[in-house]
């Protein structure tokens, strides 16, 4: 029989052997878990940082391109024929009416959110068609101005710019326009040009503002990409503007693309509930939970069952 010392020696050797054999596996498993934890905790932060950077870059590019456009239009303005100038001096009734609707550009101003989602700002029903471009009026080949609806405006914001001289101001004001029309009648153009002549030394900032119709934009993106992200955003947008029929439609479309996506079920259930079909909403959520685990879906189901508000 083996002696105690031999057994102790063998036990020591076994410990060393196992440490050597399994040590590397332990190291790799620990490394894997560490990386997984880091990814889990820091991924959302990194993603939002990346998206912020991307949106800033896009905003800067938009401002630069708009400034170039405005300058080109300004050059065109200097080449206006005499007839056209006369017409500018006597604006048509239509133009006058537009002039009365003018409001300061910085009122009701909104900024694009960081996650690049174009949010509904105030009155979404009026927003659908208020695609505004601040530009010089276009001129037809015969020298006449285009209709006032197509007119654009130059905003001379020298003071604001010279005081602050801050590029961030540019990006903020240029990305999304205020919802009201911002227009300057053609007869004001000579005044603007006069001011320009009087203050030739000052730097001028031409800001083109435009508001993008988020629904139109999202639909366009969805048609191009057929990405579930856009269909889900549309479902959410319609839900927010209380168009529950459309929200339901887009939720179903999203579900067609990926039936395992919990967001499609959630928007479906919410829209159904708002349309007075609470039972259908509960059935759908229960059906989803039979094959999936989701705290959010469970929470919504509980809220629907208890009758609590979830918005």
């Amino acid at each position: 029989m083996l002696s105690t010392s031999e057994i102790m020696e063998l036990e020591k050797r076994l410990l060393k052997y196992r440490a050597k054999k399994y040590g590397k596996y332990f190291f790799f498993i620990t490394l894997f878990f560490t990386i997984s934890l880091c990814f889990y905790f820091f991924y959302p932060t990194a993603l939002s940082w990346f998206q912020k950077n991307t949106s800033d870059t896009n905003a800067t590019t938009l401002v630069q391109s708009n400034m170039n456009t405005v300058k080109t239009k300004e050059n065109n303005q200097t080449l206006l024929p005499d007839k056209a100038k006369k017409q500018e001096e006597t604006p048509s009734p239509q133009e006058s009416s537009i002039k009365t609707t003018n409001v300061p550009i910085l009122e009701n101003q909104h900024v694009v959110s960081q996650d690049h989602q174009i949010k509904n700002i105030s009155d979404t029903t009026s927003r659908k068609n208020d695609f505004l471009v601040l530009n010089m009026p276009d001129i037809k080949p015969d020298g006449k101005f285009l209709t006032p609806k197509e007119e654009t405006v130059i905003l001379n914001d020298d003071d604001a710019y010279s005081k602050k001289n801050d590029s961030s101001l540019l990006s903020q004001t240029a990305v999304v326009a205020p919802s009201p029309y911002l227009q300057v009648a053609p007869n004001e153009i000579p005044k603007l040009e006069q001011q320009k002549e009087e203050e030739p030394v000052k730097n001028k900032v031409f800001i083109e503002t435009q508001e993008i119709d988020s629904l139109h934009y999202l639909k366009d993106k969805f048609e191009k990409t057929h990405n579930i992200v856009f269909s889900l955003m549309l479902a959410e947008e319609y839900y927010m503007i209380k168009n529950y029929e459309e929200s339901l439609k887009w939720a179903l479309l999203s579900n067609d693309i990926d039936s395992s996506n919990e967001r499609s079920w959630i928007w479906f259930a919410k829209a159904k509930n708002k349309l007075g079909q609470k039972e259908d909403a509960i059935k759908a959520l229960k059906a989803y939970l039979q094959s999936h685990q989701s705290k959010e879906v469970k929470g919504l189901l509980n809220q629907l069952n208890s009758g609590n508000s979830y918005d």
Partner: protein
Amino acid sequence: MNKTNAYTDVKNIFIDGGVFDYVNLDKSAIAYDKLVQTLKKPLKIILFFGRPGIGKTFLLQKIYNDLKGKGGIIFFPRPFFDEKEFVKSLYEELFMETSPNFSGYDEFLSIVSKRLDKDAPPISVLIDEAQLYPDDLIEKIRLMADSRRFKFLFTIHKTEKEDILAKDYFTTRIWETIELYHLSLGEVQTYIEKKLLYHNKFEHLNLFKNCHYKLIMQLTQGNLRNTNKLMYKVFEILEYYDENKPSRLSSRAINKKYIEMAALSLGMIHNA
């Protein structure tokens, strides 16, 4: 020491060559049949080879034990390095009497030819560890085989270092070659189970599960001699724990660490 230790007797059944209890395994059964059939053929030299420790000697012993009753078979388990010693031993095994001093194999052959019946079948001589025989003795044995009075079965180790099969006298003279391959996982399991069953150690059968057999196979590479050594050491370690630290032992399957400890002790695995 407590004589009632359950593992003391069990370890002894794995002493290599200590107990002749041939375990019939798939590959060894095939090799056995092939060898017996080949010995019946009118061949002069047969080569039986395989890696060391896979049971060639055991198989030869089994064949010898089974056929010696019919006569005409001689088994040399130990090698000879001298021609005179070889012919002397062959004579004594053949005629069961003290051998005269032969000057060489030709004198031996002439006497044997006179004493043996002309129509008698050739005597089968099983030679183990043939790779240890000197080349000139191998050549004399071949000449004896040419006399048709003897047929020789050489058993040699096939090693990776030296390809003994490539030697001239084996490549040109051998009429039949039989290889014994190493054991498979199932055969290792069968071997251990049968060993325990033959010795009525039924209570120890549940000590080993599939994972243990896999580990034993991995450590021994299907080598019977190493399997015996490992099992002996495992039971020796278990014997110690049963004697001194019985609480460490489970009544069910053993901890794999005892097999690893045995392998470390035998140098099959290293911790350095």
